[in-house]
């Protein structure tokens, strides 16, 4: 049903630390791998070994350069982007068939591929480019928050997190419940000022992005000064006696 739930018991989602992400794209690859081999239609590639390869991905890493207003060096920010599992998800309400829905138990936004007609309207409604119509299967694909991992009791407990989180070598991705104020993701968001993407769209994203911390700025220093400054103007002790004795000669 494409009516959004009033509230959800849990608000499962991701925190992505833009200060820590090194832009290695490991999350992109592990996401593609897991979601091709498991739930739903595989994520197809078109012309994979040809001149113009393209395909379906649920997670993509953009890289931006920010020129600080305060001056100084430009900063490179690697920016992974996947479904934000919005509380007010515009992609869900536009769906004509009921294929798109937001789960009332944990807030995960999913597509039932058996109901999807591939009209693409949900992808149009998403400001973030989180949904891609698979060109071979003709159905809409999106991040499932690895629903087939996080509740999967056949997996070791350490693996019951989304594939992107499990694989991130830098520890830039965190998974948890935003409805619980004591969860890891809630604490990180509070401590680091976790932010929403394009908040003016009114989608109320669950996923939060941690902004890069302010960079240190170098003080103006004369590089030769420490070497040339006299250690002491008035020697004391033995050196002081020697100095006076030599002066007296």
């Amino acid at each position, binding site marked *: 049903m494409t009516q959004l739930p009033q509230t959800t018991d849990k608000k499962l989602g991701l925190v992505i630390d833009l200060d820590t992400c090194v832009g290695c794209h490991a999350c992109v690859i592990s996401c593609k791998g897991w979601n091709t081999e498991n739930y739903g239609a595989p994520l197809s590639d078109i012309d994979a070994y040809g001149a113009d390869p393209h395909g379906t991905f649920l997670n993509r890493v953009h890289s*931006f350069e920010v020129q600080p207003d305060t001056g100084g060096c430009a900063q490179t920010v690697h920016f992974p982007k996947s479904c934000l599992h919005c509380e007010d998800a*515009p992609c869900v309400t536009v769906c004509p068939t009921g294929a798109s829905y937001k789960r009332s138990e944990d807030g995960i936004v999913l597509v039932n591929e058996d109901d999807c007609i591939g009209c693409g309207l949900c992808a149009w409604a998403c400001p973030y480019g989180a949904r891609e119509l698979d060109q071979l299967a003709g159905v809409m694909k999106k991040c499932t928050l690895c629903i087939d991992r996080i509740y999967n009791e056949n997996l070791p407990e350490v693996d019951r997190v989304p594939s992107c989180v499990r694989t991130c070598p830098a520890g830039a991705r965190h998974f948890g419940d935003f409805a619980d104020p004591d969860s890891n993701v809630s604490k990180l968001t509070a401590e680091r000022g976790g932010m929403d993407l394009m908040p003016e769209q009114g989608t109320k994203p669950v996923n939060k992005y941690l902004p890069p911390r302010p960079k240190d700025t170098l003080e103006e220093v004369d590089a030769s000064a420490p070497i040339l400054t006299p250690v002491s103007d008035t020697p004391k002790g033995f050196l002081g006696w020697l100095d006076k004795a030599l002066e007296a000669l």
Partner: protein
Amino acid sequence: MHPAPSVIFFTVFSGLGFGFLAWLGVGMPAPQGWAAFPYYFVAFAMAVGGLIASTFHLGNPKNAIKAFSQWRTSWLSREAVMSVLTLVVMGLFAAAIIFFNTPIAVLGIIGAVLALITVYTTSMMYAQLKTVPRWNHWTTSALFLLLALGGGAILAANSFGTILLIGLAALAQIYVWDAGDRRFGARGHTMETATGLGRIGKVRMYEPPHSGTNYLLSEMVYVVARKHAIKLRIIAFVLAYLVPMVLAILSGPAFGTYIIALVAHVVGLLAQRWLFFAEAEHVVGLYYDKR
């Protein structure tokens, strides 16, 4: 947005078909018996043809029947429900006229209202999208309705209706183009708000996520051939609005000239609708530094 031919044909012809059905529903014109058949045939062929064209846009059309289920929230679902309802009501109205020579006025008026609601639901599929600021305004719906009624007036060979409604549509069109050009900027969507990095400073693209293209770029970040936009706007405005109005003023009720007016209107409308999609900028382009 990608100007898919199937969606251009769908919006142009179903708009004209339902617009003509609205005129027929209120008895302007009111042909009787078998003489009414060609009128209804043209109206239904356009409305149904447009709807069939829209299914070519679907990736998985075998589930299309399920699109009638989510009318509580989805404008696309409402459009499906309303179009079928209109076609059934107007089908009964037409059958009573063609086979029994008895126009059921109430049924026709209900059908006319339903036809206009159908056009409104079509327009709302676009006007509802906050992600496409150019469309996200009530004037999108107003223009769709005026064009359906105006195009219907041309098909109905109604000179007063053509002059009035195509004239109003032309004024709406000028506003829609002018205000639409500025709305993306006015809404304040920038690369800085898209990334949240605006608190540090000015953002620019350093590396896109991949060297090739993707579905998002080909579907929603259509930037090709916009350089001809001004020329196409002039062509669309002359053919879709000025030619039908001038012909309606000059020739009055002469039927033959309405064929020319209709051809000009349809060609102009195809150009107008191509621009409607090609010029529409989706906010997702901000993540690619493209609009």
